[in-house]
Structure formats: structure tokens, C-alpha cells
């Protein structure tokens, strides 16, 4: 039965319509509490709900999700400006403060930005919040003019009475609007009425990012601020064996030296150079501790052993194992996906000013409430004494969903009373990541005499991120992320067995990485579907098409990608073409990749064709950008990336040993976007999870070699 998975998914995903409606009523505390007071004070801003603030300076939209480059500030602002009858040049966007009661993502159960969830979670609630604000201002204007509100028109924030030409700006009517009742019935625009949603509006955050004026967390500057950098044990659980404090303190520009127990030390300097020089002079040596013998091989051995036993059953329908046992053609395989580093280009950092009875934190984080609590807990304050100033992020890719960097900075700086910016070197960032888990997958399938799939089993073995990060949602050993896109595929499948074996790696922390569960599972499933097609002696496209009789949207993206890629047309000798199809993050996506395998040195990527159906689209140019960037992120990892360990320590320390795809290595990327009015799907990670399977299938088409372990260069 599949009820476990479905009930879990129900908990995780909810329904946008239901939660949106409920949330609006929950998220109007400011208006409820202080309406009378606001009405009495004409200088107070009009704050009808948690997302809109209007005062004499204009309209400010509060962003419940954080901007990591994915364009959510623009999409969220477009959704609200649509209902407010404003254009983007008339609004200012502002990061939400940590406040779970107002800004919790209803599908993530946290004030978090991740899982390609933001547009899905905000699609109803932000438009409703904006519409409510507009209705209150229109009602206030109607009351002032003593007319029926339905006779008034709004355009670019000006309310007009067509009957007599009277008009008022939002700024003018906002103080009076605060006295209006919050509407209980909100009618949103129909798609045919949209003038902003669906357009390629320019991003609101980019002008400052081309002239150096954008301020990221690492750019924070405060009066009297010093700069620190830290060293942590290269082996998890290791301790400081020796260090030369005198040499460190004698280094010019070094201000202080602080340590947290026996596992971390930081040098505070007048500038980063002094701090780095001081850390070098410290010449720390470490005792490795219990993890000092861990290697990648020792971790893989344990995964292999764990994968031989039955795990927690996620989906078990129509006795898949028996179907395979009696099938005409049987296949089985082991697939392996490596540890990966996030390595956002902005290294981890945060700026702390601890004042004794309170603290301030400037940081780019995907989880502001967790950030606040991490600092508060580390120095023994209540969270309400910690002010969080969320900053722009130089990439995140999941890394800033964890707050270890804030916790360690707080422990190191707990006795320092001036502002300190703690900046991780690239080397500390890469060797102390919370890595994408290493996954070890056992798959099997049976085909009948008619070459049709009759049963499929898939056992995922690996770390559970849920168990650590969202323990309340990790129930009965089920990790919904670890099996996402393994238990359910786009295909007509009746007999499926999926189970999950939790096996935590020694000496490694694990966490969310762009594309999360689907990134590894789509690689495995789509590679294995090609293995099935080969065993059935069928064309990979036709084999898939035959299994898509119940899924028209999946078939449509597959057919579109195949048509645009010229599937079936001949390729030069030594070239190959591979498919990957998925339904992930609420989005249908097909990817067809052409590669050149004629060089023995390196596979060359030629052409990537993507067909995507993400339902209703806020900004098609943002979708295009996420398809391009997400694909490159996924291809980069599949081609080059893995984290390995020797004697418990991560071997890769910087971009010289952790190779990132560069401009000369990317294929041409064509994106074909199916537009419709279905519920919105996520796009930030969809292309990433579609990269590796198409690559592995293209290589097999070109060379006959089946890639079952990533990356290619390993």
C-alpha cells in the first residue's frame, strides 16, 4: 500500500488553496491588534497584513522567502503587484524578519526557502494578502467619497472615481485604510486578467549586482567591526593537539585569539589578511579522534552491507518481487551517487554583535528563525533578544539551510563585545560542509515476453537528512526525501516495491543539496529505464512512450523534447544522445542531451534540450534562467564532482581539487516551455535533477558503457 507515503506527502505539501486561505486569516495580527490605533495616527504605516506595508515613502512588500539568486524576490513581488495594481518600479522589497507565526512556509513547516517550494507556497497567500490590502484602500477611498467601492478603478496605485475624475494615491489613502475591516471574501484575478504575471519582467535585485553596490552577508561593515577567520578540526570530532598562541598574537594586525572548547579556534584581526596570517602562525595540530581512520571506501563498505537487508517499506504494490521472479527478462543493478559539496561562491560568514543582554546577527540564511535560535542558544539568550538582519546570499544551494556556521561563530565570540565578522576561508567551507549524502541504490526490474515492464524494486540506502533536520517529520523510519522520485515515477507502473535503509556515514555531516532526493533518484531510475529499453531491444524514447498512457503531461514534455532534439536523426560517429524524464517539485521535465565521446580525455557536452511544464508561470524568463543554471549545476556535479576522505579528512579543499564547470565546457541549452494554467510547480531544482540521467544515457549510447557510479571523472 502507498498510504504511508501519501499521508506523509499530505503533511508536507498540503494544498495551496486550503492553506492559503487559512494563512491569510492567521497572518493579519498587526491589523487586528492595532487597527484603531493606526487609524488615529495618520503618520503610521498601513500594515494590513504580514506582507504589505504602505506609508508616505511608498509600498514595501515583505518577502517570506529568501533570495539566493533564484529570482524569488521578483516573482513574489510580481504576484503581489498584480493584485495591488502596481508595477515593479513602484515597490520596494524587504526580507522578512524571523517570525514563524507570519512567515512559515506552509509546506515546509518552517520559515525556510528550499525544495523549490516558494512559488508553490506563496501562489495563493501573497496574492490574497495583496488583494486584501488593495480592497481596504479602495474601501477607504469609497468611504471618503461616499460611493460604492465597486465603481472605483485602480491603476499604478492610483484609485480613481471614473464618474467625476477624483483620485487618491495609495500613500494618501493608506492611513484611512487602516481603519477599514479586513476583507473576509477575497476574489483573485483570473489568469485572463493578468497584466504582470506571465511576463518576463526585469528582476528587482539585479541593478545593484552589476555595479558592486549589492551588499551580501560577507560585505557587512559596522563601526568598530573586526574580522575573524576560523579553523576547525579536519576530522569530525577531532581536537586541538597543539598551537603556537604567542606566534599568532605577535602577527601584525591580530587583535585576539578565541577558542570554543577543543574543536575550533578563531583569530580576530583588523582585516581578513591579518586574521589569515595569524591563523597560519598558530600552526595548529589536531588529534583525529574516533574518525581518524574513516575513508570513502570504509563508508561505501558499510553502505553496501546495509543495502543487503530489507529497509523500511515505502511503497509495495502488486507484489513486485514475485512479478520480477517470474518475468521473461530480469535485470538488476547497483547505482552509486557521491558526496557533494555545495560550495556557493560566497563562503560561509556571519557578523555578530553580542552586547551582553542581546545580540545582533547579520547573515544570509535560508532559515532566519533557526539562525536566531542558533545564536540565542549558543550564548544563553532567549531568541527574542537576537535581532536577525537577513542579507543577500552569494548562492546557497541548500548550504544555508543549516546554521552550524552561526552556532560556531557564537560559541567562539561569546565573550567578545565588539562587532565581529566571521568569514570562513574557502578551504574551511569546503572541508566542513554538510554534504549531499552518498547514496547506494539497488534496483531490479522484470519485463514480460512482450517486453513490457511488469515489476520494479528500488532500495535506497543512505543518510537521512530528515532525521536530523526535520526530526518531527521523520516517522517510522520513513524519509520521504530519500525516496522522492524512486517510489513514484511518471510511468504506468502497478507492481513497485521501494524501501529505504538508513545508514549514516562515519565522520560526515549531510544535508540538503540542490535537487535533493530527485537529483540522485532520477539519475538512477532514468538510467535503469534505459537499461530496461536495451534489454527489451527497444528505442529508449519508444520504450518510455509505451509506459506513459496515463500521464499526458509527462508524455507531452517528452514528445516536445524529442521533437526539438531531433530524436532518431543520426549523430556523428562517437556521439550519443540520452533522455531523462521526471515529475519532480510539481514540475514535468524532459531532457535530451547530445554528447561527443570521441576524445579519450573528456566527454564534451554538445546540446541540451529541455521541455518543461511547470504549470502557471509567474515569470517565464526566471524559469528559463533556472533551467539553464540548474542544468549546468547538475551537469557540473555529474561530470566532475565528488567529496572523498582520507584518514577521516575531506580531500577536496578548493576549486582546484573540486572542479566546477566553466564557460568553455557548457553545452548549448535550449528550453521549450509549455504554458498552461495548472497549479504552479517548482523550477529552482528541476533541471539539476534531470542532468545526470541524460548524460549517463548519452554516454552509453555513444560508447556502450553504462555509467552506474558518479561522477564520470572518478
Amino acid at each position, binding site marked *: 500500500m502507498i498510504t504511508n507515503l501519501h499521508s506523509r506527502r499530505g503533511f508536507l505539501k498540503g494544498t495551496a488553496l486550503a492553506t492559503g486561505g487559512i494563512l491569510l486569516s492567521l497572518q493579519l495580527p498587526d491589523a487586528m491588534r492595532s487597527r484603531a490605533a493606526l487609524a488615529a495616527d495618520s503618520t503610521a504605516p498601513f500594515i494590513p497584513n504580514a506582507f504589505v506595508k504602505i506609508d508616505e515613502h511608498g509600498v514595501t512588500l515583505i518577502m517570506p522567502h529568501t533570495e539566493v*539568486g533564484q529570482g524569488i524576490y521578483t516573482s513574489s513581488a510580481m504576484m503581489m503587484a498584480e493584485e495591488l495594481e502596481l508595477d515593479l518600479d513602484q515597490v520596494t522589497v524587504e526580507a522578512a524578519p524571523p517570525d514563524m507565526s507570519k512567515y512559515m512556509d506552509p509546506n515546509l513547516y518552517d520559515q525556510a526557502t528550499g525544495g523549490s517550494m516558494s512559488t508553490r507556497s506563496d501562489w495563493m497567500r501573497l496574492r490574497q494578502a495583496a488583494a486584501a490590502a488593495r480592497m481596504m484602500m479602495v474601501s477607504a477611498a469609497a468611504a471618503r467619497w461616499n460611493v460604492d467601492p465597486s465603481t472605483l478603478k485602480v491603476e499604478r496605485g492610483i484609485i480613481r472615481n471614473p464618474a467625476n475624475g477624483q483620485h487618491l494615491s495609495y500613500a494618501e489613502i493608506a492611513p484611512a485604510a487602516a481603519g477599514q475591516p479586513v476583507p473576509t471574501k477575497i476574489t483573485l484575478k483570473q489568469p485572463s486578467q493578468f497584466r504582470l504575471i506571465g511576463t518576463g519582467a526585469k528582476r528587482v535585485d539585479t541593478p545593484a549586482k552589476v*555595479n*558592486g553596490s549589492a551588499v551580501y552577508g560577507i560585505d557587512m561593515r559596522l563601526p568598530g567591526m573586526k574580522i575573524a577567520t576560523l579553523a576547525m578540526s579536519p576530522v569530525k570530532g577531532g581536537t586541538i593537539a597543539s598551537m603556537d598562541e604567542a606566534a599568532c598574537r605577535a602577527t601584525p594586525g591580530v587583535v585576539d585569539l578565541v577558542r570554543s572548547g577543543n574543536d575550533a579556534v578563531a583569530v580576530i584581526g583588523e582585516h581578513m589578511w591579518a586574521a589569515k596570517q595569524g591563523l597560519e602562525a598558530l600552526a595548529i595540530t589536531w588529534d583525529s579522534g574516533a574518525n581518524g581512520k574513516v575513508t570513502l571506501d570504509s563508508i561505501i563498505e558499510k553502505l553496501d552491507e546495509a543495502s543487503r537487508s530489507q529497509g523500511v517499506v515505502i511503497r509495495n504494490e502488486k507484489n513486485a518481487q514475485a512479478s520480477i521472479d517470474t518475468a521473461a527478462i530480469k535485470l538488476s543493478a547497483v547505482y552509486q551517487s557521491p558526496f557533494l559539496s555545495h560550495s556557493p561562491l560566497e563562503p560561509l560568514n556571519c557578523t555578530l554583535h553580542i552586547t551582553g543582554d542581546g545580540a545582533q546577527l547579520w547573515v544570509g540564511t535560508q532559515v532566519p528563525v533557526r539562525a536566531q535560535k542558533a545564536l540565542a542558544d549558543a550564548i544563553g539568550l532567549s531568541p527574542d533578544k537576537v535581532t536577525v538582519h537577513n542579507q543577500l546570499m552569494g548562492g546557497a544551494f541548500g548550504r544555508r539551510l543549516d546554521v552550524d556556521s552561526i552556532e560556531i561563530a557564537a560559541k567562539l565570540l561569546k565573550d567578545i563585545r565588539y562587532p565581529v565578522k566571521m568569514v570562513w576561508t574557502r578551504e574551511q567551507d569546503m572541508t566542513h560542509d554538510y554534504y549531499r549524502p552518498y547514496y547506494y541504490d539497488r534496483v531490479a526490474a522484470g519485463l514480460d515476453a512482450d517486453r513490457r515492464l511488469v515489476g520494479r524494486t528500488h532500495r535506497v540506502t543512505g543518510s537521512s537528512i530528515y532525521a536530523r533536520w526535520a526530526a518531527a517529520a521523520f516517522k517510522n523510519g520513513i524519509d520521504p526525501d530519500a525516496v522522492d522520485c524512486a517510489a513514484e515515477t511518471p510511468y504506468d507502473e502497478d507492481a513497485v516495491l521501494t524501501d529505504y535503509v538508513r545508514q549514516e556515514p562515519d565522520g560526515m555531516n549531510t544535508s540538503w543539496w540542490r535537487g535533493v532526493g530527485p537529483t540522485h533518484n532520477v539519475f538512477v531510475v532514468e538510467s535503469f529505464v534505459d537499461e530496461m529499453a536495451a534489454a527489451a531491444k527497444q528505442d529508449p524514447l519508444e520504450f518510455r512512450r509505451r509506459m506513459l498512457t496515463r500521464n499526458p503531461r509527462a508524455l507531452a514534455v517528452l514528445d516536445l523534447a524529442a521533437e526539438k532534439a531531433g530524436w532518431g536523426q543520426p549523430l556523428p560517429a562517437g556521439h550519443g544522445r540520452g533522455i531523462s524524464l521526471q515529475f519532480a517539485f510539481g514540475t514535468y521535465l524532459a531532457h535530451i542531451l547530445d554528447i561527443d565521446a570521441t576524445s579519450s580525455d573528456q566527454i564534451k557536452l554538445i546540446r541540451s534540450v529541455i521541455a518543461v511544464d511547470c504549470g502557471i508561470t509567474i515569470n517565464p524568463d526566471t524559469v528559463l*534562467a533556472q533551467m539553464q*543554471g540548474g542544468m549546468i*549545476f547538475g551537469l557540473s556535479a555529474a561530470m566532475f564532482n565528488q567529496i572523498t576522505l582520507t584518514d577521516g579528512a575531506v580531500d577536496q579543499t578548493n576549486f582546484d581539487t573540486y572542479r566546477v*564547470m566553466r564557460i568553455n565546457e*557548457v553545452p548549448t541549452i535550449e528550453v521549450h516551455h509549455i504554458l498552461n494554467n495548472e497549479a504552479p510547480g517548482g523550477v529552482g531544482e528541476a533541471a539539476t535533477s534531470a542532468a545526470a540521467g541524460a548524460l549517463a544515457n548519452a554516454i552509453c549510447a555513444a560508447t556502450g558503457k553504462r555509467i552506474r557510479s558518479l561522477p564520470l571523472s572518478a
Partner: protein
Amino acid sequence: MKQLVINGIAHDVDAPDDMPLLWVLRDVLGMTGTKYGCGIAQCGACTVHLGDQAVRACQTTLDMIEGQAITTIEGAAGNPIGAKVQTAWLEKEVVQCGYCQSGQIMSAIALLSTNAKPTDADIDDAMAGNICRCGTYVRIREAIHAAASL
């Protein structure tokens, strides 16, 4: 005390000879548009111009500067090619997180300053030292071609 001329303005800086320009710009002078990404000339986020050459500020120590004019992203618009590159970057909506883009733009300006109509191969050669983790390379290429046509 050394004098550095940055974006046409002279600054007196009290810093050791072996201090990389990156940290002088960011932490001494407060010009944070130039970014730290790797510290070992692998990522290009700290690209600035020394004279008309694109250099990595993380590997350019103060004693290597010897009176040459420094241009950073904050001064990019002061050069007609720089202004065109910034315009093209916005026109093509290149930017995602934006962290690498100061370095990308400085590398692109250096390219267009010596090669008014670069081919794709020229762009590959000139830009391969600049990493973008968001994967904006497709649009960087388009924007360089667009800037060359402005």
C-alpha cells in the same frame, strides 16, 4: 604609507607589502564590490584591472602594483566599454545570485577592450577563469556579444 589610485581617486594605505589587494580593497578601503571566492586564483570573483589588464586581486600583493591605476567594479561605469557591459548584463538578465558577477564583468570589459568583436572561442579563452556556481554562462556569452554590438 602607500598611495593607490583606484577608480581615479588616490588613497593612502597603511598596509604591508605582501598584503593582497583583495583585502586592502574590501577590509581597509571598504570597497566590497570585489569579492572573495577562493583566494587561490581559481574562481575569478576578485577580478580587477591593473592598468588595462584583468588580474586576480587575491594574488596581487601591494608591492606588485607599483603605481599602476586600479579599476574595480565600482569604477566600471566610468569606462564606456564598462557601461556597455553593465547595460548588456541587465538587458540579458544575466545575474542570479550575483556574487561572481563583479569578476565576470571586469573580465568581460578587459576582453572587449582588446577585442571589440570576440568570437565564442575568444569568450571561452577570456572568461574560463571566472566560475559561476549559478550557471549563468549561457547569458554571459550572450551579454558579451550584445555589449560588443552596443
